[in-house]
């Protein structure tokens, strides 16, 4: 259920720039700009997204993440201020989720093969669970180390959202005011359409990739969705999705999808994922998180926080020039 942007019937067609990044589609939409400056801005934003991808991707052997993982149980790895701040954020998510959002839980992928559609054995999961544990990540000024050999961390839980926010901030700093950055459904909105009206973002039906199940209007802020349909398989009438509970090693089952609107894409995405991980307790979590949300449970029931802070914003609060 990736949100899709619907441009409505705007007179001035926005400039759109599509690309592939982090294994998925990305798009930058800019309105009130000509195609030449639109292209210049989009290229700047895509360069920033690619910088983040190459610096933090676990698929690239030269990334800081790969270096930390390769030295697990052995050496310290140097990290810069940006990397340290991502670890500080991961720490906050671990606390906020009661230990469910754990960037070291990716080791479970070694047991879960969604392509082969194979349910792993108890023993395999038990062995891997011993390698999960954010508190086994040792941090000191400018350096980190994973305590046990075989442990690994990754920023897959919020890397795309972080990139969308960074790209969005960069575009705003360059003077763009109307548009959005969409990285595989994690969307940072720069500001409304030129006429002041919000963008209408469609939420895809978690059970029908071709259908839009809801629309959310956002003038600025961010929308992110976490769902059970991106990577999954079904066996014996049960659905096994890629969002795994680090305590059991098993996929979560309570929610089909959770969409959250917040001021930043990282915040929206983190709340959506934590709600998925909290399963039944996810609703109380969402009610307390202070953001608007739209969630579909395993039976397709729709839950929403309609107190309608649906236009969460990063404020245009600079002082007017005297």
């Amino acid at each position, binding site marked *: 259920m990736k949100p899709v942007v619907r441009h409505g019937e705007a*007179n*001035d067609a926005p400039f759109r720039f599509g690309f592939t990044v982090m294994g998925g589609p990305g798009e930058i939409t800019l309105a009130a*700009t000509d195609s030449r400056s639109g292209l210049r801005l989009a290229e700047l934003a895509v360069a920033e997204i690619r910088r983040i991808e190459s610096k933090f991707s676990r698929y690239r052997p030269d990334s800081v993440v790969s270096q930390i993982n390769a030295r697990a149980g052995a050496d310290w790895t140097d990290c810069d201020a940006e990397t340290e701040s991502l670890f500080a954020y991961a720490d906050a998510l671990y606390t906020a989720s009661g230990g469910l959002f754990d960037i070291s839980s990716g080791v479970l992928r070694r047991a879960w093969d969604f392509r082969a559609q194979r349910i792993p054995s108890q023993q395999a999961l038990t062995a891997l669970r011993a390698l999960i544990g954010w*508190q086994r990540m040792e941090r000191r000024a400018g350096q980190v180390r994973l305590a046990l050999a075989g442990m690994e961390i990754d920023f897959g839980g919020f890397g795309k959202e*972080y990139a969308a926010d960074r790209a969005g901030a*960069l575009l705003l700093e360059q003077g763009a005011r109307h548009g959005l950055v969409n990285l595989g459904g994690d969307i940072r909105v720069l500001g409304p359409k030129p006429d*002041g009206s919000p963008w209408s973002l469609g939420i895809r039906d978690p059970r029908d990739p071709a259908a839009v199940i809801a629309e959310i209007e956002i003038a600025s802020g961010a929308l992110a969705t976490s769902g059970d349909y991106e990577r999954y398989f079904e066996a014996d009438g049960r659905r096994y999705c890629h969002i795994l509970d680090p305590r059991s090693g098993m996929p979560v089952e309570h929610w089909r999808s959770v969409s959250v609107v917040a001021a930043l894409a990282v*915040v929206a995405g983190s709340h959506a994922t934590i709600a998925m991980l909290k399963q039944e307790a996810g609703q109380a979590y969402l009610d307390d998180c202070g*953001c608007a949300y739209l969630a579909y449970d395993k039976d397709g029931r729709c839950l929403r926080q309609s107190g309608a802070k649906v236009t969460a914003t990063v404020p245009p609060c600079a*002082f007017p020039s005297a």
Partner: protein
Amino acid sequence: MAATEHPVAVEKPRSNPALTRDPVSTGALVLSAALALPGLLPAASAEPAPAGGMIGLRNLSYRESQPGLERVGSNSPSLVFLVPLAGEWALSGDLVTDNVSGASPRYHTAISGASQMKDRRNAADLQLKRYLEDGSVSVGLARSNENDYASTALSLQGTVDSKDRNTTLLWGLGGASDTINPVNLAVRNEQRHSIDAMLGVAQVLTPADLVQFSLGYNRGRGYFSDPYKIFDNRPRRLNQTALSAKWNHHFDAADGTSRFSYRYATNSDGVRSHTLGEEYVQAFGEGWSVTPALRYYSQSAARFYVDPIYDPLFGAPFPAGVAIFQHPLLTMDQRLSAFGALTLEAKLARQLSAQWSADLKLARYEQRSAWRWFGRGSPGLAPLTAHWLEIGLYRRW
């Protein structure tokens, strides 16, 4: 299916005290942690170099009145523009021509004998700004010409942003030189020179809050009297210190922005003033926005201001008990009396298309002695009201 029904026994979470925190605070925890990530918010105070230009036409109609008298009225069409140059520079300007007509009061608010005036003012204000990686520098030149008054001002201003762009240091230096040649030949080629300096800081507190403090000092020397007011004789030095504070807050739910400001100023004439302002910008759909504003101003009188109590023998305009022919420091200018004033303003703006926008501003100003904040206002003065209407049409490219 619930997690507890999984075939795998669920481990209890480790007894990390941080994990037992009150769930109500998790939203704030995640948000504050996200805000600590670098580069997610655009620098609220760092201005980008403009990508496009703007040209606009404005007209300001101003009318000032007192009970029984229409005083000054003016009509000021102006041309405003902003042209980006070479990516990192911008040239902006405001060219205005005023046509002023009406009665200029001779002393206090007395009506009798008020002379009729007609005047034309041409003014140009140009600013060249250079956008830097961590701030900006701009130079400004302002010229204004009336048949009896010419003014030239130069300014140099800058901003310096902190690394995280949450803090901005503001500074400014300026100088002005004026020449006064009144049509009544009360004085010839009188001069007034001033220099000023300003230092301020703007700080982003939260994504929704921005505060700014500044301190300004102005030192003036020369002719500050009003040549059209009889017996008006003011000190040839005027130094002023001003402190100001501003707070902008954005309301997410309503998508509106409040701008609160306070300014305190004190000068060597003995005038101390307070200005409190609040405006609220509310955006609506389809490009509409409405900005109501309220401003309250209060000042004490200059120490050489005299009340309208006239000599029992000679009558007005001779103030009672003042040895008038020894040229004492003296003014009867209502603007230097003790008073309070309220300004009510409403602005309606509409983004017409990606390129075109228009706005309309209506304002009413009223000044009354009784409205002074601290202490009593100056007695015996008629209230003064002013209305203005400003319309503007702008095109961007």
